[in-house]
């Protein structure tokens, strides 16, 4: 059995990356080292080889329906006042309490997913593989060196714990099922609450969450030239109702906040279009934009990796080109 930790957003909807992880689980039967045999866990009934979901905190009707469309037959709903604030240890133990003894436990490769799966792996004595891209007869394939290379590996043990690389797979719905929802009478150990979050400061709308869900992202790199060089790209963001994403050179120079960084150590995005302006296309940046459906490059250097990897490119100074694009959009609006 494959169990997926499902993240929900503040509105109670299943996040895009969790939908990806659920699709990955459903479409990768090779994940089951036990061939889908039933487990000894107390919950009875789920068909073998199925995908089960774990949700912590409020569980909305919309999320139940969405999980059903993603083929989830059983939802383990873990709700407890002590889990209302995030505490990795307490959340991980709650997941471990309902996890199968054999099979696969996985989450998407978000910061939460990574942290919870690592705790769960230690608590179950399991191995963990982060950023898995695929699983087949040959074992697992995962991203290493920031996406420059893939590692082939085999996890041993009855339970394998994984995270799925962001955008390793596209969410796909299936014949809807009506999930059975199991609620539990949980106990949370005091010791596991030592690292509970005290509070959360909610930032403005242009945060990382907006970046990962935007349909259009305008990327800006060193080519922007200075802290004051963002006027044209920000105007384009506005015309597209999208988000700004930047390279690490830009955050490193302090031109823009780290929350806007895209790449290996920033956000992984999957917009319909990514317009990379003045970004060379370093492997660590490309790792964050693999999910983009259409890639556009605006760069003075025709040989730049970003131009070579793009679907469309304009060769030229980004300030001039983006300025002209903005004018053209305004002109066509009339």
């Amino acid at each position, binding site marked *: 059995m494959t169990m997926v930790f499902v993240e929900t957003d503040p509105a109670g909807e299943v996040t895009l990356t969790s939908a990806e992880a659920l699709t990955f689980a459903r479409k990768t039967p090779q994940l089951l080292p036990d061939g889908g045999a039933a487990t000894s866990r107390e919950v009875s009934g789920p068909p073998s080889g199925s995908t089960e979901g774990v949700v912590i905190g409020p569980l909305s009707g919309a999320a139940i329906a969405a999980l059903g469309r993603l083929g989830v037959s059983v939802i383990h709903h873990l709700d407890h006042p002590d889990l209302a604030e*995030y505490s*990795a*240890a307490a959340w991980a133990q709650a997941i471990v309490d309902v996890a199968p003894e054999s099979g696969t436990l996985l989450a998407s490769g978000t*910061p*939460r997913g*990574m*942290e919870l799966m*690592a*705790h769960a792996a*230690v608590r179950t004595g399991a*191995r*963990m593989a*982060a*950023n898995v891209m695929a699983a087949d007869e*040959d074992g697992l*394939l995962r991203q*290493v*060196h*920031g*996406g*420059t*290379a*893939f*590692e*082939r590996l*085999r996890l*041993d043990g009855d339970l394998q714990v994984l*995270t799925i690389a962001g955008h390793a797979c596209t969410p796909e719905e299936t014949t809807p099922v009506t999930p059975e929802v199991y609620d539990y009478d949980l106990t949370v150990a005091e010791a596991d609450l*030592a*690292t*509970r979050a*005290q*509070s*959360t*400061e*909610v930032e403005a709308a242009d945060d990382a*969450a907006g970046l990962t869900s935007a349909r259009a992202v305008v990327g800006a790199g060193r080519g922007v030239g200075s802290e004051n060089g963002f006027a044209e790209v920000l105007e384009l963001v506005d015309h*597209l109702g999208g988000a700004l994403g930047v390279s690490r050179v830009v*955050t*490193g120079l302090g031109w823009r906040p*780290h929350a806007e960084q895209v790449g*290996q*150590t920033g956000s992984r995005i999957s917009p*319909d*279009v990514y317009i990379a302006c003045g970004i060379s296309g*370093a*492997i660590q940046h490309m790792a964050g934009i693999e999910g983009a459906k259409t890639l*556009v*490059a605006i760069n003075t250097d*025709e040989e730049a990796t970003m131009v*070579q*990897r793009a679907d*469309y*490119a*304009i*060769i030229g100074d980004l300030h*001039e*080109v983006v300025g002209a694009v903005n004018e*053209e*959009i305004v002109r066509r609006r009339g």
Partner: protein
Amino acid sequence: MNILVCIKRVPDIAGSVTVDATGTGIDDSGLGHTMSSHEECAVELAIQTAAATGGTVTVLTVGPAEAVEQLRAAVAVGANDGILVEAADPSVFAPEDIAQIIGDVIRDRAEAGQTFDLVLTGDDAADTGDFQVGIRLAYDLEYPVLTNIQTISVGGTDEGGGPGGDPGSGRIEARGIGPAGTEIFSLGLPAVVAVHEGGVDPRYPSITGRMKAKKAQVVEYDAPEPGTGSLRVRLELPEVKASSVTILGEGPDAAPALVDVLEEIGVIRP
């Protein structure tokens, strides 16, 4: 507050790479080496925190003899001393092994009279990206652990009631990026904190720093045989796809062609 920062020597990759003769690693003979950007920020956080509390910063690495370069780089920016656990080829170890090795060294240093209030790691190493050594180390030491932390400051009440309190009270406040905004934690020490880049700017070494680094004390250990051992079967490289770019044109004259594309995708706000 005495702080230990775990850093890993990794190849500095800019372009494409090749797989080495063993088929399990990348050929790093032509590459420079560095530490992960998360770890650079962890070193910076450690230096600032130690300065605020009158404590020390020690850096530790499990790696080949050459990894002393990364230890000295950290001393050059302000760390006090280093610990090298020499392993000719650290890739034979699983993350479980690395955590165990670091835990054993921390216990051994404690016996030698050197204790650490706070152990920092990066969220993940730039090469293996396992995202677990810090957490496994915390369980091994039976310390609490946070990951994804960008800044730390000393203090906090013992009830965990939030910021405030005296420096050196045995608590830190840590801030990190959560899915809904900045999450704030109050953490009792000793503890392990895994750092994510972006909260502080790593400083550059000064001339005196470089001089100090040459003479820095480095305690050496030999790594034991791998217990669990790496699970890597082989390394593969992604297929290099031939470019299929359509050049829409040069300069501002190409703008209408791009607006056509954006209209077709349907992302222009009406």
